[in-house]
């Protein structure tokens, strides 16, 4: 169990700022996820911690001591790779024991620890198999066992599930979560899959263009995004632009039937355009007429498209010219008879609305 500090990490590739002043404190024993779109710098950051490339400036500390000058093979991190990176010429047992042999652990002990590690990842008895006899999911379990068996200070996982099919992905992520909780190995987990990040993590760091957008628990990241980017990347969200002239004059948010004033929302008059957002699942649909009240926002629109996926349905509602809202209905039964072109009422609580400054992307 070790803590990791990243202090002012900068890494440039030519003109591209791959990592722009990244500061993170990763607590001992937690599963910490780096989440972001491809090219956001999350993998670069992970590989920098592993020592595969060096940061241009900044310091990495494990348990308070700097590791900047240690080569990758002496950093004592265990890495799980996106493409498994199982040595194809070695048996499963030799793969798992590879790191122990580098540490000159006696053969007898290697054998025991390998068996134990394979048991942990539920691959007992497969020591003598060759990797090409294993499925992708099994190979990644070998990868996990191989990284865990050396009892690394930090476990680094680089999109470990992205090459597996959907069902295996869910199965293996539950196992990873369980094993990590049991062993309490500090883990840094990279993924671009927001659902995976939400399910597996103690804390999530959302990255964008080489910078940290927000670090929080899954719950906070989803419910209380600090940035426009976080709100748009994690989960889905309806955004409506609210031009500066409009909110300064206290004009209603330019939606036909909303009479939402800027009262109750503290807006800095220096701000430019505002973007208002509401999550699709916070909006309810009903054919019944609804009275307006001060808690809720009520409006009506025309159903433009319905995407039904079994346990839920997505309604695309046209409010006015070019303004559309996506509504997620989790139990679509009562709306099953609705058809495209019909008018429907929408209602959502005022506090479900979030406001972001268009220019800085910060919450306001």
């Amino acid at each position, binding site marked *: 169990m070790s803590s990791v500090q990243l202090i002012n990490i900068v890494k440039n590739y030519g003109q591209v700022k791959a990592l722009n002043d990244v500061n993170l404190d990763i607590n001992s024993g937690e599963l910490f996820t780096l989440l972001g779109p491809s090219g956001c710098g999350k993998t670069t950051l992970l590989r920098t911690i*592993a*020592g*595969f490339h060096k940061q241009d400036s900044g310091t990495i500390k494990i348990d308070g001591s700097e590791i900047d000058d240690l*080569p*990758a*093979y*002496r*950093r*004592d*991190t*265990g*890495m799980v*790779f*996106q*493409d*498994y*990176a*199982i*040595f*194809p*010429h070695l048996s499963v047992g030799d793969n798992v024991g*590879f*790191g122990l042999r*580098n*540490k000159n652990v006696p053969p007898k002990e290697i054998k025991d620890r390998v068996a134990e590690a394979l048991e942990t990842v539920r691959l007992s008895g497969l020591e003598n198999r*060759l990797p*090409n006899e294993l499925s992708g999911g099994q190979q990644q379990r070998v*990868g996990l066992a*191989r*990284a865990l068996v*050396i009892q690394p200070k930090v476990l*680094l996982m680089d999109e470990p599930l992205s*090459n597996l099919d959907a069902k295996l992905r869910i199965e293996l992520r539950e196992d990873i979560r369980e094993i990590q909780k049991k062993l309490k190995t500090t883990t840094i987990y990279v993924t671009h899959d927001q659902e995976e990040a939400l399910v597996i993590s103690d804390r999530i760091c959302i990255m964008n263009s080489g910078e940290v957008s927000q670090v929080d628990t899954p719950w906070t990241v989803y419910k209380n995004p600090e940035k426009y980017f976080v709100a748009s990347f994690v989960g889905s969200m309806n955004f409506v632009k609210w031009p500066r002239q409009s909110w300064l004059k206290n004009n209603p948010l330019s939606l036909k039937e909303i009479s939402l004033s800027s009262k109750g929302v503290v807006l800095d008059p220096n701000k430019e355009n505002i973007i208002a957002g509401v999550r699709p699942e916070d909006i309810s649909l009903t054919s019944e007429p609804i009275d307006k009240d001060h808690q809720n926002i009520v409006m009506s629109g025309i159903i433009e498209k319905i995407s039904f996926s079994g346990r839920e349905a997505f309604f695309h509602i046209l409010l006015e010219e070019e303004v559309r809202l996506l509504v997620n209905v989790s139990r679509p039964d009562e709306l099953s008879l609705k058809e495209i072109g019909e008018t429907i009422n929408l209602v959502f609580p005022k506090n479900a609305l979030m406001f972001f400054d268009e220019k800085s992307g910060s919450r306001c």
Partner: protein
Amino acid sequence: MKLLYSVNNIWTYVIILAFGVIGLLLIFPLFNIFLSSFIDNESGVLTFQNYIDILGRRYYRTAIYNSVVVGVAGMIGALVIGIPLAYFTSRFHIIGKSLITTLAILALVSPPFIGAYAWITMLGSNGWLRHILENVGISIPTIYGPLGIILVFSLKFYPFVFLLTAGALSTINVSLEDAADNLGCSPFSKFIRVTLPLVFPAVSAGALLAFVLSLADFGTPSIIGRNYRVLSTLAYNLYTSEMGGNPGLASTVSIILICISLIFVYFQRNLIKKKDYGSSLIRRPEVKKLKQAYSIPVHFLCYFLVILSSIPSIVVIFNSFRNTSGPVFKPGFGLDSYRRIIGDVPEAILNSFLFSIASVLMVVVLGTLIGYVIARKPSVLTGFLDSMIMIPYIVPGIVLGLGLIVTYNSKPFVLVGTPLIIILAIFIRRLPYSVRSSASILKQIRTGVEEAAINLGTIPSKAFLKITLPLMMPGVIAGALMAFVTAINELSSSIILYVGGTVTMPVRIYLSVLDGEFGTAAALSSILLITTGLAVYGVLLISESKENVFV
């Protein structure tokens, strides 16, 4: 519908023609050799005596032993040079990387006997480099004998290891090396325990080529080996011996040569069995910058190795402009040697070009067609054809030459002494290269494009001519140039098959070296080298991937 049938028949004819050619030029001659190895030279009865002689008498056993020794040592030399060169050039920024590759390719395609001859002019008993070294107080062992053969083989065949290994090293999944790093492997141990095993199939394929070609080579041991007997020179001497040749014994030696090659092919196949590490999940290695401290030694090493292997070519061209008198180089430069070859042996130059062009035309046409049926019309028959076509790889030129002589020296097919037999020998020896390269080009061209043409109303034979063939063309031309290079440098079968009027440049060079006509040899070698260099330049111009064309 009728058209479709006749078109299908075209490929049937190709298959029949292919089997006919292989049968007549390869299987039948080899069978005759096999048969003749069991026939007593004097009485003409069936006997095991030839085998008993070869395996029983120390004189012959030494040749077997020597062949394996220089073959294995040449292979090891090729590995020692080829692997570091491959590693450094594929993983690090080396200044002039394409120059290094080009020099290696030139070393590969230039005939080995030129290397042997050039080293003699440098380090032979009268060599200039020896004199220079002796003057500064360094005396080195004589270049004649096994050491010279091994030196030439190593410097000649390392490009196989180099090009194949470099190709494999740059397509390895680099996550595996990262994983080794991450698990605490030091850089050297990472190379030994992870990188090398991963490229083992390529390394061993290169090593096998180096061994098989070393074993089959006739010119090098014959020129630089002096009294060091190997199987290829033994077969030649047994056949052409002054005291009346012994075809039976020569055949037996041939069969033993093929058997040794086969054993090594089998051994290598077994070693790489189940070692196909191809994976769809691949992160290609990045080419890194060398650390300042390593940069100079690594550059020095790379350039030292390729320049060492290019020295023979440079020396030969240099020698061709020196004034000579027999084996002695005299002061001063001039075009005497060139004047002499144009005056004395113009037919050798002419023959070489005529025979090579004729055989290359045949190789390209038939090779492309056979490549097509193998790649696109898979069946039991074409699968069998595919394995048959590989036979020439393991049949030394000397052995094929003997086979053709034994087969076509009596009525009704007397070909011995004609240009045709030399052309046919070159043709059958080069056919597999052309077949393999056109088959591999075809594997990169999707069948869909031809099917699309047929779907749009083109008849299949026209679809092949209009769609597939143009797409294949760059590869076919590159293959033709490579076939030309190997054809014009062919020595080991021609040396057996030539008569006065059908002498070729390599044969003439060989004879000149033996006669001590170093000037003539240098001028002819220079013509060969320049021709070869131009052809290789042409190949480099039209092909993207260097390794695939040359290896």
